[in-house]
């Protein structure tokens, strides 16, 4: 994939000196870039050198048969793999121009910039308010109580949950329905104002109606955030994403506009997968 460095005129206004962001051939800003990413669980290699770009303010879907390394790649993007003792990552992952795996990078800050929503809704056993306030509190984002309330309200609003829960913010988040819980988790992620949101099969534990709501939400969030979503549902990838990457056996087979991938795949394996011949 051709990479071209151009000068961003706006950055001249910045007082700090930073390298201009990378852009794609089409002139779209690349928010994150994976270069030759290899991941090992102990002796077992799960990813065999993946090169993948994530474009700003777009939804990138990762699809592929289970066990092909989608989650593994996703978890590299905010170093969630650090929590697994036996996991080792090689290659470069860049967020803007910062190497995510640079020892000088603070994972706390990284994860504030690259948030994550998990497969199973996992609200903390706290009140709805406290769930959303959790991130702002640990990062000290709110100066006052009013500030915090403002952040919580606006995050819930963006997650499309505010109307449903505004009268019971002090009730436990675990008491919500599955779909509401997942949107609560999204609100929780939004509350720390991340730049990128990673979602690992966020709808796989939800019923169709809740799924539709979350998909709608993902589409709206694209305005302000860059989103990477793992999904096992090709319909979902087609509905919510602009670009799709197909993984197979730990390699990235093919990446491109979602439309192209689904109507005109270049690789036989992609073709087989989307026509349901395996996986």
């Amino acid at each position: 994939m051709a990479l071209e460095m151009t000068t961003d005129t706006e950055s001249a206004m910045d007082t700090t000196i930073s390298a201009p962001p990378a852009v794609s051939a089409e002139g779209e800003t690349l928010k994150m870039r994976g270069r030759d990413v290899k991941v090992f669980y102990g002796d077992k290699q799960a990813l065999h050198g993946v090169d993948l770009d994530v474009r700003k303010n777009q939804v990138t879907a990762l699809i592929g048969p289970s066990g092909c390394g989608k989650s593994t790649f996703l978890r590299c993007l905010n170093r969630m793999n650090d929590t697994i003792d036996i996991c080792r990552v090689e290659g470069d992952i860049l967020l803007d121009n910062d190497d995510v795996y640079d020892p000088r990078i603070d994972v706390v800050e990284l994860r504030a910039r690259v948030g994550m929503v998990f497969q199973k809704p996992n609200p903390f056993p706290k009140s709805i308010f406290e769930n959303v306030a959790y991130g702002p509190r640990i990062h000290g984002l709110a100066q006052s109580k009013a500030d915090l309330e403002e952040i919580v309200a606006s995050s819930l609003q963006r997650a499309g949950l505010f109307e449903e829960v505004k009268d019971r913010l002090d009730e436990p988040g675990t008491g919500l329905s599955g779909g509401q819980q997942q949107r609560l988790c999204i609100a929780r992620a939004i509350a720390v104002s991340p730049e990128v949101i990673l979602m690992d099969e966020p709808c796989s534990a939800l019923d169709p109606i809740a799924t539709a709501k979350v998909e709608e939400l993902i589409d709206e969030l694209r305005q302000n955030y860059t989103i990477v979503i793992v999904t096992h549902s090709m319909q979902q990838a087609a509905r919510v994403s602009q670009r799709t990457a197909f993984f197979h056996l730990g390699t990235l087979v093919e990446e491109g506009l979602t439309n192209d991938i689904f109507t005109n795949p270049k690789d036989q394996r992609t073709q087989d997968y989307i026509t349901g011949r395996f996986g």
Partner: protein
Amino acid sequence: MFWTYAALLLLVFVAANVYGRFRALQVAGHQLSVLHSRPTYHGGYLAILSTLPAFVLLIAWAVVEPRMLDMMVISANAEVIEGLSKPELQAFLRDARAIAFGGIVAFSDAGKEQAAEVFASLAQTSFVLKSVLMVGLVLGGLWYGNRAIRPTMRARHFVERTVMGLLILCSAVAIFTTIGIVLSLIFESLMFFRQIPILDFVFGTHWSPQSAFEGAGAEHGEANTKIFGAIPLLVGTMLITAIAIIVAAPIGLLSAIYLSDYASTPVRAIAKPVLEILAGIPTVVYGFFAALTVAPFIRGWGESIGLSVSSESALAAGLVMGIMIIPFVSSLSDDVINAVPQSLRDGSAGLGATKSETIRRVVLPAALPGIVSALILAISRAIGETMIVVMAAGLAANMTVNPLEAVTTVTVQIVTLLVGDQEFDSAKTLAAFALGLLLFCITLALNIFALRVVKKYREQYD
């Protein structure tokens, strides 16, 4: 005799079981599908039907027979027995039994010989009657059961119900034993409170029952009511328990956190069992460790900085007791901390929380109910502990919150009240029951409190 019969019944049980199975297959024409219940159940049905009634009879007989015999012997020898006091009557019966059935006879006389004959003949009759009844029950059960076995018979339901009855019986035994113990505590305590007003006991601040004068029983004087004040014991118990918890709670909890979230697998595999070994050390070992090592050490240390420390101190006992209950806190807390789902830790880490933030703000709150109950269990354990305190804290019922002085606890005083010679109706002995009741009330209150805390803060996660 009892065991011979029980063994015979067991044989019948096995045989009936085998036969019932065989019979079921026979009536089914060796076609399993026509049977409502599998042959095993028919075997069980027949076995239960033939032996259970006889077994119940056997036990009932064993319980009732001696009493019946005694009563009949007494009525048959009314003229000899007349005028005997209760202990004399018991001695009489004991000797008569010994003459009749063999055993050590204290001394015999004509009256006892006569009673012994009555014993022997009654026992003979009883034996015959019992045997006839049992054989009748077994045969009746076999006959009825054998007739009842047919393909549509719901043997499975019968067996399941019998098993359920057995389970209910076992739990009833546990429950009624508990109730019995509590009731006896209450009754004996009531007897105590008849001599010592309950308020003097619960709110009295002076405890020195050993100074009760001779015959502190029935003809107790006014002074006696003033020496059974339980407050110093309660204060001593609280003091030592508080010291123990202050030691055990942080150490236990922090090591649990280390073990569950920081320790690598090999470290954990070694450290956890080692911690649990602490729980296996007999308390008497802790006791002399406290008395011979820790107490003198504290004393020496106190003297070197100019404090007066008595050679037995609440501090020594509390410290060692704290060490003793560390494994309770750490092992149970470790389990509940581990039970907090990994997904919650991931969720927190995904928001940029550090490990310690995750533990403080997510894991510990989620595990709180379990941790509280672990702590309460440890407290109950500390309150009930006797050995360490006897050896290291002393017997002096000082009312003090100074950990450097000797104190005593409820359990220790129960022990000292009950060692040595005693009359069962003296206030001194009965005081032990009252203390037991007090202790029971405290631990009960603690447990109820713990349950409520757990319920209130129970966090649902799945």
